């Protein structure tokens, strides 16, 4: 049964939910006060100290407004006043593992080619129509979900939903497109990828980290690509349509406006079942060093991956701050050390990706191949230093400020807002939980940062290092480090043959 807007209001999550709290901007009067304080009219401005900062408050967002759009179809709305575009994601809670028990090429291609053409629009017509009306339509399949996403200007939302509905319910999976996708993927795996040092490094670290026994580490199989047929995709598409569904809507609109437009779509959707988590993951238990020789290149691509806290775990917030300080920002210790102090690299950046069943911390940078040992030594040193001592108060302060600013920028555009909301929905969160997480960063202190860093980055934590560069020089550099490496080729890296 479809819940009315009034029902939602009765739950306190509808139109009478608090509006986005822009009143929490820094009061402009405060800046006016600073002006008089700073002695305008003197010979020059006071440059003897850093001017005072009025810290921003943490933006408050309303909870999702939840309605039942149809049996088995949950609707979530996040109103975002003032943005130009509306986002609509239809999330079918059935994915690759539900269909095939594994991540397969057929299920990947099903998600990837749904949005290419539909019963109403051929491939060229679809591309032209979406360009004409500024509609961005995308589809993909994950381990446990299939998603079709629309971002459209509010005035073109009706047209966008027509496309979304046709793509979702009546995709045609053109043979020509399937063949093209197969050809392109084979070309990447066999031809272009093995000549690209960055692609080699990415693959080597992914497959070096994840065993082929887990869906996270499934190796590409060129023969499997060649075997995929249109019927395989059609069958999988039909299977996911029976899943329970969540429809997420974000933008400058209400359920009163959105619901009538969604009716045609949701009346064909809805199923029973439970949304399951992705596959479990067990990180490697030993350190690995994987080296790939690419003769003649002046630089070496370096990556290192470690296990990190999972999404929602107690360590997540503290580790996010640790990442910011270690390598997650321009000001980080690793970038400061390798770039700003030693001029060894154009930039060293780390990322922290927490999923429900696994967390990853990955650092990537490049340097002159004959500086490999020096640069790698510095990374090991910084990892140890963080694991032993955690962060300073100053580092805690700026890393927290960065994350708060990112949070406060969540609603800058309609696309940004939808991306953030979709992320929360993926992990069973909402704007309230997400804000609590940001607020909770304030409770992390130096001792806590050290405790978390020691647990995840300590010397016993398995690390997978990948080095892609001129083999002759790399061997000397590995000798200088006293490290033994597994040597593989670029082709092996791309195919996960290690």
């Amino acid at each position: 049964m479809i819940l009315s807007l009034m029902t939602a209001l009765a739950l306190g999550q509808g139109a009478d939910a608090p509006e986005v709290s822009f009143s929490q901007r820094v009061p402009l009067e405060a800046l006016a006060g600073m002006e008089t304080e700073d002695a305008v009219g003197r010979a020059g401005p006071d440059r003897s100290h850093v001017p005072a900062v009025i810290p921003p408050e943490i933006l408050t967002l309303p909870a999702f407004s939840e309605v039942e759009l149809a049996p088995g179809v949950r609707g979530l709305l996040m109103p975002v006043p003032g943005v130009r575009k509306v986002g609509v994601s239809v999330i079918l809670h059935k994915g690759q593992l539900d269909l095939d028990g594994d991540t397969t090429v057929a299920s990947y291609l099903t998600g990837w080619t749904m949005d290419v053409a539909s019963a109403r629009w051929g491939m060229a017509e679809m591309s032209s129509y979406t360009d004409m009306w500024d509609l961005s339509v995308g589809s993909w399949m994950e381990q446990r979900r299939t998603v079709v996403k629309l971002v459209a200007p509010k005035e073109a939302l009706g047209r966008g939903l027509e496309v979304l509905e046709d793509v979702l319910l009546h995709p045609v999976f053109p043979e020509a497109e399937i063949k093209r996708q197969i050809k392109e993927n084979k070309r990447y795996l066999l031809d272009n990828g093995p000549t690209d040092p960055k692609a080699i490094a990415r693959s080597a670290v992914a497959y070096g980290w994840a065993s082929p026994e887990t869906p996270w580490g499934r190796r590409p199989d060129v023969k499997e690509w060649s075997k995929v047929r249109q019927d395989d995709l059609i069958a999988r598409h039909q299977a996911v349509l029976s899943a329970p569904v969540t429809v997420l809507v974000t933008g400058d609109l209400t359920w009163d406006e959105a619901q009538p437009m969604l009716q045609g779509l949701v009346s064909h959707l809805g199923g029973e079942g439970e949304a399951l988590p992705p596959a479990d993951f067990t990180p490697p238990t030993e350190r690995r060093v994987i080296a790939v020789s690419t003769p003649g290149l002046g630089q070496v691509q370096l990556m290192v991956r470690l296990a990190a806290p999972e999404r929602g775990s107690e360590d997540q917030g503290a580790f996010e701050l640790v990442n910011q300080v270690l390598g997650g920002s321009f000001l980080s210790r690793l970038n400061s050390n390798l770039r700003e102090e030693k001029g060894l690299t154009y930039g060293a950046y780390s990322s922290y990706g927490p999923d429900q069943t696994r967390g990853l911390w990955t650092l990537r940078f490049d340097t002159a191949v004959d500086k490999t040992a020096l640069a790698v030594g510095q990374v090991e040193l910084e990892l140890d230093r963080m694991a032993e001592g955690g962060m300073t108060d100053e580092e805690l302060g700026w890393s927290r400020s960065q994350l708060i600013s990112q949070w406060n920028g969540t609603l800058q555009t309609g696309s940004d807002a939808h991306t953030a909301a979709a992320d929360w929905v993926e992990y069973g969160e909402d704007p309230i939980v997400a804000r609590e997480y940001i607020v909770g960063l304030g409770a992390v202190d130096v001792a806590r940062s050290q405790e978390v860093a020691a647990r995840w980055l300590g010397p016993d934590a398995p690390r997978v290092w990948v080095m892609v560069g001129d083999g002759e020089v790399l061997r000397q550099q590995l000798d200088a480090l006293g490290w033994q490496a597994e040597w593989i080729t670029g082709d092996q890296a791309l195919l996960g043959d290690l």
Partner: protein
Amino acid sequence: MLLTLLSLHAFAGGDLAMPYQIHTLDNGLTVILAEDHRTDTVALHVRYDVGAKDERDGEYGCAHLFEHLMFEGSANVPGNSFDTWLTAAGGENNAWTSEDETAYHMTFPSGALDVALFLESDRMGFLREGLTAENLANQQSVVVQERYRYYDAPNGQDYDALTVLLYPPEHPYGHTVLGPVAQVQGFTEDGVHAFWERNYKPGNAVLSLVGNIEPEQALGRLRYWFSDVADRGAGEPILEFPEPPSTQALGVMEDEVEERTLYLSWPTVPTGHPDEPALDLLASILSDGRGTRLDDELYYDRQLATSTSAWASANTLSGYFLVEASVARLKLPKLEKEIHRVLDGLQTAAVTEAELDRARRSLRSSMLDHIETPQGRAGALVACYVTTGEADCLDADWARYQAVTPADISRVAATWLTPERQVSLSVIPNGDKGALPGAQVVVLP
């Protein structure tokens, strides 16, 4: 000009107007202010009229080096305090350099306005005092690493090679933005100081502030923080330069690549030229996804090419049109014929209103997306001002694109994309023989 502000794509609807205030400070700095109270963010964008075009021989790469040095300390902002203080206040920053200009941009919470203005004014007024030999040497090394990382990537040298072919060495665009390694490594403290004195001054810059500000208060803070930044005169416009050659040129470069790539380019028009809109739209009609001519013909339908693109670039002094395609097996002479067949089709099968409408709408949507964020709007206001003298230029510029007809598209293709003016670059795998015949090896400086 629209294309110089953004990259491709999107729709109609929405408003291109950008209300603003403009002022000139006593020291000659032009400031543009615009309110946007949707979020707490403020964007600051400073554009100096200095790019590769302003570098003299021996200074090649210096404007780009300053993109690094401007964050390395000034008289009252020691060492890397620029980043430390701005980041602690919740801000972030970056910069970019082109043939024509250098832009420095920050975003920060409104309560950090004074920190941002303190930092920006200190480096505009007093960078020289903070510039040490150590900083210089370090950033020279970082820039060299930056260049190597491009060159080690497949096709990472192609655009530098194209520059060599398109412009004579004495042309302001005749060298690359990053500069040759030898020159970058050869910069001295004195030379860098002189470059800064000549170019990084209020009279050669435009600053915009967009976001959660109240313009009168913001103007007061700008006047306060920039009050001790001396007026060092206006910039030095480039008045004379050689025209790019309008004769055919063929170059070839071998690289560690798997596929052959062909670049066909033609010298065209500078920004503001009457033909600029039609050339921009022509690029979109040729290559903007399914349903566009080059992409359908070579990539989607016949699958002769593994990638295709078309681009119209209009800079201050000159411009060029570029068609690019990569192939796995096809010989490049055959690919060239196929590309010309598509280009010739612009005369035999005239561009339709539908094709033109799609290209226009894509462009307009891109613009609307671009100016939705405070930083995008801040950049657009400055770009408009330096290009047209009017900060809120997008509606007027859009009118130029609306006036383009299908006949204009055919005309600009026939006028500018002629075989006798074509500059081609074949990039082939090491040892391969598939280049265009007669191509000369391109030597990068």
